[in-house]
């Protein structure tokens, strides 16, 4: 094993209760100092493989062998892992405590822990922040902090599970720079990532998984999925939809005691049938803006009209406004997908036969007709995302707001989501507003692209 940090031999894994294995016949090795990228679409088994390497898979059936070389330091673990969502992996209240957590569990001497904390924080550029509360950090800072708490254990192998999926461009760039530094210092890194483009310069080798099998092992970056513009992506036309505004926002101000004003006299007017992309970095105020539009957050000043209703509220916009927040799967509760989608229509007192017709049409429109009788909570993340979309599309809303709808989706799923949203104006006359920190998978999708920056909204150049 001398030069090899990780060896996997014919590894199979089947989750408890699953009919088919999620990983099948995986064999590969990682050499010391390599930066290896595990690619593949969502659900192909990337995260499961990382958990298997960490020894964190519970239950299930497994075959084959995974060998990880012990770290040089006797007290250090052979591998450390950085998960996708920083919020649920940060366990302590201050930065120093968080980074010290791993070494403390390894029974490292207190003085040595202090050194490791400083070492870890320096590696991720958070030096001097030891006493800060973790809650004050941005998403990018939290991810860097989580990385520092892995580094402080000095693992022989660093595993990264989609580390940039929640980050904006600036956060991604910061992490890329840190990974470049770690690689230059000789760390062995295995990263699961469905979009490895930002890391191309760092990656030595790509391992591609498809349906739980390793189908490629070479240094060539995977081909990007090409976007084929569809005929239904007609540009917005005032003749087609009229010039009546669906959304009119004037001089919106929102301030928080901790961060000051996040929206400063934000003004926006959107017409029926428009497709709008609102771009902004993490913390720019996109979510606050959308919440004001949906009446979930009262503005300090300014006025909002949605579909002719001034001062909208959740109770006044039922059926007319659809809102898909981040992690939309958390709103699912029904026993079948059909019941889930029918829920809004039942509450809006549609006749039973009309409900059946609309549900069938919506499921087909969202490409999930085959899942109609499945339990939503047993579906994959991508499928749950689609079901959640169907639940807000079913009442044919006048305005559909989507907050970071691409988080956690791979590129084909993003394109597919964009295609569905692109059909909504022509099919239902719905105005679609997407807020995200990422560029759209295809910028041509948007009739208007806006930038939320320093509290104000401005049009972006085409």
């Amino acid at each position: 094993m001398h030069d090899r940090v990780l060896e996997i031999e014919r590894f199979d894994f089947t989750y408890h209760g699953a009919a088919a294995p999620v990983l099948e016949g995986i064999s590969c090795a990682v050499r010391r100092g390599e930066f290896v990228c595990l690619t593949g679409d969502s659900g192909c088994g990337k995260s499961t493989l990382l958990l298997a390497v960490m020894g964190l898979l519970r239950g299930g059936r497994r075959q084959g062998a995974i060998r990880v070389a012990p770290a040089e330091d006797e007290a250090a673990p052979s591998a450390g892992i950085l998960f996708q969502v920083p919020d649920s992996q940060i366990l302590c209240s201050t930065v120093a405590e968080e980074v010290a957590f791993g070494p403390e569990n390894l029974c490292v001497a207190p003085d040595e822990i202090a050194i490791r904390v400083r070492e870890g924080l320096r590696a991720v550029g958070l030096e001097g922040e030891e006493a800060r509360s973790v809650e004050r950090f941005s998403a990018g800072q939290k991810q860097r902090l989580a990385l520092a708490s892995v580094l402080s254990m000095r693992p022989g192998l660093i595993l990264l599970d989609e580390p940039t999926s929640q980050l904006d461009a600036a956060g991604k760039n910061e992490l890329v720079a840190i990974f470049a530094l770690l690689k230059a210092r000789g760390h062995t890194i295995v990263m699961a990532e469905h979009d490895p483009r930002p890391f191309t310069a760092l990656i030595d080798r790509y391992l591609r998984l498809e349906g739980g099998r390793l189908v490629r092992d070479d240094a060539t970056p995977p081909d990007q999925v090409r976007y084929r513009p569809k005929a239904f992506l007609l540009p917005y036309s005032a003749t087609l939809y009229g010039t009546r505004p669906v959304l009119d926002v004037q001089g919106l101000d929102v301030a928080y005691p901790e961060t000051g004003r996040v929206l400063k006299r934000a003004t926006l007017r959107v017409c029926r049938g428009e497709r709008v992309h609102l771009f902004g970095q993490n913390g720019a105020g996109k979510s606050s803006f959308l919440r004001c539009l949906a009446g979930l957050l009262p503005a300090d000043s300014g006025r909002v009209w949605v579909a002719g209703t001034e001062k909208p509220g959740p109770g006044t916009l039922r059926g007319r406004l659809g809102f898909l927040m981040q992690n939309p799967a958390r709103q699912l509760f029904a026993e079948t997908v059909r019941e889930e989608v029918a829920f809004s229509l039942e509450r809006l007192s549609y006749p039973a036969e009309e409900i059946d017709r609309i549900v069938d049409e919506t499921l087909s429109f969202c490409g999930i007709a085959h899942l109609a009788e499945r339990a939503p909570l047993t579906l994959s993340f991508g499928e749950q995302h689609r079901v959640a979309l169907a639940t807000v599309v079913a009442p044919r809303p006048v305005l559909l707001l989507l907050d970071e709808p691409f988080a956690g989706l791979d590129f084909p799923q993003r394109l597919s989501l964009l295609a569905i949203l692109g059909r909504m104006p022509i099919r239902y006359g719905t105005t679609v507003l997407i807020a995200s920190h990422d560029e759209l998978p295809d910028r041509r999708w948007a009739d208007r692209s806006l930038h939320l920056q320093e509290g104000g909204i401005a049009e972006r150049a085409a």
Partner: protein
Amino acid sequence: MQKGPPKFRTSLRSRGYPCRFAEHDSPVHRMGAGWKLLFGVFLSALAAGGRTPLMQAILVMGTLAYYLSARLTLRDLWCDVRLFAFQAAMVIPLYCMLDGVEKGLWPGVRISTQIVLFYLPGAVFLRTTRTSEAMAALRRIVPYRLSFLVFVSVRFVPLFFRELEEIVALQRLRGARLSPREQMNPRNWPDLFNCVVLPLMVRAFRTADEVSRSAEARAFGLHRERTYLDVAAMGRADGEEAVSEVEGRDGAYPVKALTD
């Protein structure tokens, strides 16, 4: 467009959550976690027993003094007790309805005040005590795994309040009958269970799973005992004169070793 200064509630809005640790310094921050725990239990016990208006007035003053001596602001106080404001808004009218305003008002006010006074010392403890200090105090009494469990649970409670708020908002937009007025009707209670409690439970289980995996990935529970960060050593390490530059064990980064 609205003119004039922002409304009063602006200053009460917070992105923070109740009982969040405040990293500044104060006399209460400097008290040992064990002493704070004891003092908090003492104050809470007094709150549970204080039934006369005079006793309650004294306790309100004392608890407020304790709260403010931790250099916490009135905004923090509102953030911590706002949920109890809703509770008081329900309890007091209920007492008045049951016993009449004359007889019911004081018991309603007393019970509501007692609940807040009982809870506030705990809020001060959480706002002024680092997880490590609290765990260090608790581990003298219970195994470290249990003390960790307690503090991680407390840390994630506010996140669930945020989740709860978001789920309620999402489901109301979908048509669920969840407004306080709608929930007065028992026929709408299934919506509360199906649309809110169920998704929240699913979310709680998922988060618990993620948290335990994260702790396990960082060797939690590997040994029967664990060491603790020496905050004083961190302080010493902050002073450049107290450290000397040496190369790291694996040459990974320049590491500062303590000379003291």
